[in-house]
């Protein structure tokens, strides 16, 4: 998995979710195979803990692995980050698990009772009991633990949005896990299908954490200008400024010093258009020539030729795959591609 396999379409928002789903499903499979082939070395009171801890470690580690792969950080750094995230996730889940047994269980059931007219029995004594209310807390704890583990590496203080996303992502992952698990438990087929509930519950956990907490960031992409007209087809140049710096790319027929050259015979002026990036990955095209300059995208076209009586050149925001027509036959395309694309 790397950034070159993820085009800048809506699918990029789902990629991390899919891969976290793979990691969590793998954790389920490894647990099931270990239990069935080798057998547990732990006591039965730790059955749920071991399974969920495996998921927590797999999802938090997996999420950091994905990020490391996409950012192409060094192998040592990647391994270190994965270990820290997995360790923090495991540790926090272990603490939550123990607290649940000792004190949080009763508190949690008291809170549940506030929501219901009838009392929910506090039945933690039978560790073999399969019930939504018995397991819900640990599902949520698993989700929150993954959040804490990944946050410990990605940083707590980046932004409230970042922090909230992770925490809420973990909570949503735990809750969706519990709901899918419960669906198979009670409502699928004749009920009590803990086999598929485990498989699809795990998948859901990873998927929703990946979907809600962290997705492929836009900063890994950059806008590119790519020549579409036949004379210089395929030549391209990135508008690869980061948030701290600005960069403007100039397109025209001036032979020396421009970022992207197109021949005059195509009606392209010496300095025809320029493109630059603003904060928040907002790409802008500025028309600099009185010759025809038009952006075309589905159901929309924008004229950008320079009006001498206007105090400033016309500008418009660029979106990936916009076509920019210049002069008689000069065509370039704006496309979002990975920043490191060669």
């Amino acid at each position, binding site marked *: 998995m790397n950034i070159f396999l*993820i085009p800048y379409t809506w699918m990029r928002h789902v990629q991390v979710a899919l891969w976290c789903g793979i990691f969590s499903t793998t954790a389920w499979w490894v647990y099931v195979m270990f*239990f069935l082939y080798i057998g547990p070395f732990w006591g039965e009171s730790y*059955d749920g803990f071991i399974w969920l801890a495996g998921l927590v470690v797999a999802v938090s580690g997996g999420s950091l692995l994905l990020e490391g792969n996409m950012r192409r950080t060094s192998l040592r750094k990647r391994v270190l980050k994965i270990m820290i995230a997995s360790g923090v996730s495991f540790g926090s889940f272990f603490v939550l698990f123990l607290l649940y047994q000792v004190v949080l269980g009763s508190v949690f059931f008291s809170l549940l009772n506030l929501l219901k007219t009838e009392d929910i029995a506090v039945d933690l004594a039978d560790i073999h009991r399969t019930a939504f209310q018995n397991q819900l807390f640990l599902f949520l704890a698993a989700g929150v633990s993954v959040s804490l583990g990944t946050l410990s590496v990605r940083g707590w203080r980046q932004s409230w949005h970042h922090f909230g996303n992770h925490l809420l992502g973990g909570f949503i992952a735990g809750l969706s896990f519990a709901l899918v698990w419960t669906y198979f438990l009670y409502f699928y087929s004749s009920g009590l299908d803990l*086999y598929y509930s*485990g498989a699809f519950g795990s998948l859901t956990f990873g998927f929703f954490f990946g979907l809600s907490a962290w997705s492929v960031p836009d900063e890994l992409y950059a806008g590119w200008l790519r020549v579409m007209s036949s004379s210089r087809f*395929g030549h391209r140049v990135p508008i690869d400024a980061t948030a701290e710096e600005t960069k403007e790319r100039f397109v025209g027929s001036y032979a020396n010093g421009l970022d992207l050259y197109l021949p005059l015979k195509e009606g392209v002026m010496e300095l025809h258009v320029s493109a630059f990036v603003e904060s928040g990955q907002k790409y802008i095209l500025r028309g600099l020539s009185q010759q025809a300059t038009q952006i075309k995208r589905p159901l929309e076209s924008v004229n950008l030729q320079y009006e001498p009586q206007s105090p400033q050149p016309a500008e418009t925001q660029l979106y990936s795959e916009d076509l920019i027509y210049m002069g008689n036959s000069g065509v370039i395309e704006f496309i979002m591609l990975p920043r490191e694309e060669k």
Partner: protein
Amino acid sequence: MLHWFLWLSIFWGCGSPEKEVIPYSMTRIGSYNTVLEGDDREIKIFNSRMDCLDLIGNLNLNRPANQKMSPEYEQKEIVNCMPWIDRKNGEVQLSFALMRGDSPEPIPLTEKYVDVVHDQHDVKKDASAKVTLKRHEKILGSQLYMLIIDGSGSMDNLTGVVKDNRELTRMDFVKRALLNPSVSSAFFPEGSNNQVVMYTFTDGTPVRLGGMISSKSEYKAIVRTLQSLGGYTHLYDAIDFGMNQLEESKDIEEYLAFQSASPTILVLTDGFNNQARSDRCASNAKRLEKLIQKIDEKRTNRDSNLLVLPRIYTVGLGTKIREKVIFREDYQSDVDVDILCGQYKRMQIDGKLEKIGIDNVSLEWIAKVGGGQSFVSESESGLAKAFRAVAETRFKWFEIRYKVSPMWMRKSFKTMIKIRSMASVSSEIDIYPHAWLDGPNGKLQKEGWTNPRSPYHSSIIFMNIIGLILFLSILGAAIFNIRRVLVGRLNPPK
């Protein structure tokens, strides 16, 4: 502090003594507990592969050289013996044997005489539940049936049933029942080396009819010679005599020794044990006590010769004098007059008492201590049914499957197996399901039960999920590139 906390938690989580994981599942199973032990016998529920390897291995070892199990069959039997649970279908499979000491005792157990209790719910009483019993390891050795038939004067009493213009006597009933083809086939099944030895008794020493009977034709000829001899009914003495004959009669002893045959004593009577004119029901208490103590001593003494350890069945011709009898716990050693006779304890044993009914309590008592069963019937077909039951094929271990609502398996539960025929024994076993997950659901078979699915099934599910996700993850890139090809963004304009 943290160090202490971690150690505490590790110890708390570890250690589940005597719990095994049910193969191909994520459920644990405990060891069985005997709830009710019956005269030195108990139900052993096999809970692990080791248990099953031991059982099947020993059974195979004890088979005659020409009847050893093939390796494939042995493996199949081991799998059948191991417990299995399919919570999706609410199914539990357990294997058990009636154990005397370390070896399984062969019994002719049928579904009717087994009860399964799932966490205090009698499974058989639940209309939606299902129970089935599969019998394993049929007794392949020879059997010796010792038939001791009452020849007292009362056996000449008429029954009121007319056949071939002649009113049948009680003895005619017995003869017709014994001659029933299904009964003779039960005593001499195809290919068996079984033998029958027949006695008739009144008072004094029982009289042997013929020698060792080894064929149906010989058997039929001997049965036809059965007749009432007149006199009292020394029932208890006849049983005592029969037991002694197993060791004292040369031909019987030789047959048992050379054929490794198992002896079964069948006693038939139409009344009470009656040794003198003045006998009352209460007079039998001490006599019965002496007999049952002897039977018990013989059956429970570890030094007893296993070859002459008989199983005693009793058959009563007539109607029961008392319907409901509750035995005390010390029934093997002590006979209480009130339990034996009830309101009839002072009544003289004569035709008047025998008209009310036969002494079914004595018969039940003897069979209970003798490891057999007691039957009472006043019809010819009822007698034939009882004889067939006595000669029924016996099995050494059993596989019981039951199905209840899957919702009953959402927590740990106890399963109790009770036998109500040869002996009243029961054992229970604890089953501890995984609270979160299960292994692959069972594979439904034709009979409506499931068999374990290989753990590889989880790999199939895993591969499918992973395959689908990988497909979806490249789908975005694929669609993006295909669309760009179709709209001509990847080729220069012409």
